């Protein structure tokens, strides 16, 4: 508390923000103010991503090829799906350690259900829906134990981690691998849009953000949420456009073209769920309540919010996104094997969300953080791979980036607290 609080009337000195002018000048002033006060948002991670792309673009000759870019997108897709779920769980201040093997369960269920010749064989799309539903139910059960019994989520989902790993082991130990032949399931990863179809998709994606700004400006006329500056909205739109059109351009025809590719469906899936889940988190009552519970569960409860219901639904979301991610990973190799989930899936997913600025203590973070984090980790690991760097170093670099991002975020939060914003 400042001394002004105690002696004088309760009036803080005017915020620096209020003196900022409009126009281009204002955008710069605001940006500089944000840097000084640690209100960085997703800027560091975007800068990091650009730096990584440039570095690998120069050092790895095959980085900017369409084949590699399509690979990069499909590799990132599964991790990003899991990371989306992690965002919601972390927003509550909880954790879900089971998602890696839950992804495996999703893949396993889908593989079983499409098995040609079996009595339960079904259409691939239906099989995927069932698999995702199974994972959502499992998530719901785990969430119920957390919410109604009060067992810490760390313990419940650690139990889930072991249980679902065990189930996968039991199922696959004898058979080794189940091949997935259903074309719909494999499409989730491998379907490639024709070069022509990529452009309109990029255009629609780019248009979403300005459309939402416009919507707010119209619906919320005269209120502060409708007051975003046109210039900053325009600049952000241009940035999103560069990323979207650039990705399509490279996926369509990379630097060294051996096989012309195109935008993979997996890329569209992560964008679709990014939009859907961002909408859920930011525009709906449910999303508002998730932030409230994460910020102060007791206050939320006293406000009449059913904290338990919110928890159960969030763990269902986390299960469902894990299931979807699992299907994408299975489609990548057209099979599910004992080696599932690939690599450090669980830790990569959590790291993605955390690198993207989602707080482990609840109430702070956004869905876009998971996407940005997953893309950064994906690019990093892909780039190091194309440079034929050993796995050991890939882990070390990923760890350092995680450490760096969280350190930066912690410092930023402290700066923010000091400047009173």
């Amino acid at each position, binding site marked *: 508390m400042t001394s002004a609080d105690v*002696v004088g009337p*309760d009036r803080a000195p005017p915020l620096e923000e209020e003196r900022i002018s409009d126009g281009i000048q204002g955008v710069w002033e605001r940006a500089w103010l944000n840097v000084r006060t640690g209100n960085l948002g997703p800027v560091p991670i975007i800068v990091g991503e650009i730096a990584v792309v440039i570095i690998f673009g120069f050092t790895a000759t095959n980085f900017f090829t369409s084949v590699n870019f399509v690979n990069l997108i499909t590799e990132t897709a599964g991790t990003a799906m899991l990371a989306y779920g992690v965002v919601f769980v972390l927003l509550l201040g909880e954790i879900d350690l089971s998602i890696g093997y839950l992804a495996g369960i999703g893949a396993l269920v889908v593989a079983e259900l499409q098995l040609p010749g079996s009595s339960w064989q079904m259409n691939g799309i239906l099989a995927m829906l069932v698999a995702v539903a199974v994972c959502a139910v499992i998530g719901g059960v785990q969430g119920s134990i957390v919410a109604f019994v009060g067992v810490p989520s760390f313990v419940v989902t650690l139990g889930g981690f072991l249980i679902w790993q065990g189930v996968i082991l039991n199922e696959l130990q004898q058979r080794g691998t189940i091949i997935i032949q259903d074309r719909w399931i494999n499409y989730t990863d491998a379907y490639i849009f024709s070069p022509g179809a990529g452009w309109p998709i990029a255009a629609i994606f780019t248009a979403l953000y300005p459309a939402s700004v416009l919507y707010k400006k119209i619906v*919320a006329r005269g209120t502060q*949420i409708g007051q975003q500056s046109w210039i900053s909205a325009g600049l952000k739109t241009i940035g999103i456009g560069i990323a979207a059109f650039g990705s399509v351009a490279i996926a369509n025809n990379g630097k060294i073209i051996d096989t012309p590719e195109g935008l993979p469906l997996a890329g569209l899936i992560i964008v679709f769920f990014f939009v859907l889940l961002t909408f859920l988190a930011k*525009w709906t009552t*449910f999303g508002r309540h998730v932030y409230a519970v994460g910020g102060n569960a007791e206050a939320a409860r006293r*406000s009449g919010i059913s904290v338990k219901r919110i928890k159960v639904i969030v763990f269902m979301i986390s299960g469902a996104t894990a299931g979807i991610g699992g299907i994408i990973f299975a489609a990548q190799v057209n099979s599910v094997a004992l080696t599932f989930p690939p690599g450090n899936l669980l830790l990569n997913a959590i790291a993605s969300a955390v690198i993207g600025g989602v707080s482990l203590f609840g109430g702070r973070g956004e869905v876009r953080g998971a996407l940005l984090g997953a893309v950064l980790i994906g690019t990093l690991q892909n780039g190091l791979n194309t440079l034929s760097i050993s796995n050991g170093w890939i882990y070390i670099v990923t760890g350092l980036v995680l450490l760096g991002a969280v350190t930066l975020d912690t410092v930023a939060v402290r700066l923010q607290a000091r400047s009173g914003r």
Partner: protein
Amino acid sequence: MSDTPLLHLQGITKTFGSVQALTDVDFEVMDGEVMALVGDNGAGKSTLVKCIAGTHSADSGRIVFEGKEVHIHGPKDAARLGIEVVYQDLALCDNLDVVQNMYLGREISRAQILSEAPMEQHTSETLKSLAVTTIKSVRQTVATLSGGQRQSVAVARAVMWNSKLVVLDEPTAALGVAQTEQVLELVRRLGEQGLGVILISHNLHDVFETADRITVLRLGRNVGVFERRKTTQQAVVEAITAGKPTKVAGISASPAGVDA
């Protein structure tokens, strides 16, 4: 002001295991009245409030609200009747902004989709009508507000819902002088607007500045109701401490309301 009390508790008894927190307590608040509830630590003030808020249910006794007996089983029931409780702590979500806190749990929405504009407008209007003017932006996160501003938001939130009775559990306990004054001013305005107010406080100075009447609890019993204009701080202190002669520093023995 009619003769029926807004809220009338009759013979409320509440035990926690072997602890008798409340014993046969009668308590009333009229419309437009600020009723202070005072008593030593553990006297049962918070417990009584929790019975009104529906957090606890009394073992026996009746709650009569606007002349009708009611049963309150939770925050939602209380809110439906027009009873709002402002807790000293844990009332707001730091990570949400003022508007989001004001509408927490009762968001305006269409098909589950939030309608931010009316929420923001109504929040600004409510704060203005209560003369809460020090808050710069209703889109500031609550974490950036001062203690007095936070308490003002909590009180404003309680008032916004056409509430008839607002319960404040130690609203100024953590506040400095100026901020305390700000909140007390707000409390007085609630009374002037015709709401019933229950004010719990350990600070008799605050109580004598705002309350119309004062109910004293001691060891879970109602040991007296005082008219502020016709009593002294000394008399209230004696009721709180069971008449032991306690000279409390800074408390004068003269009547607080001179114009009685």
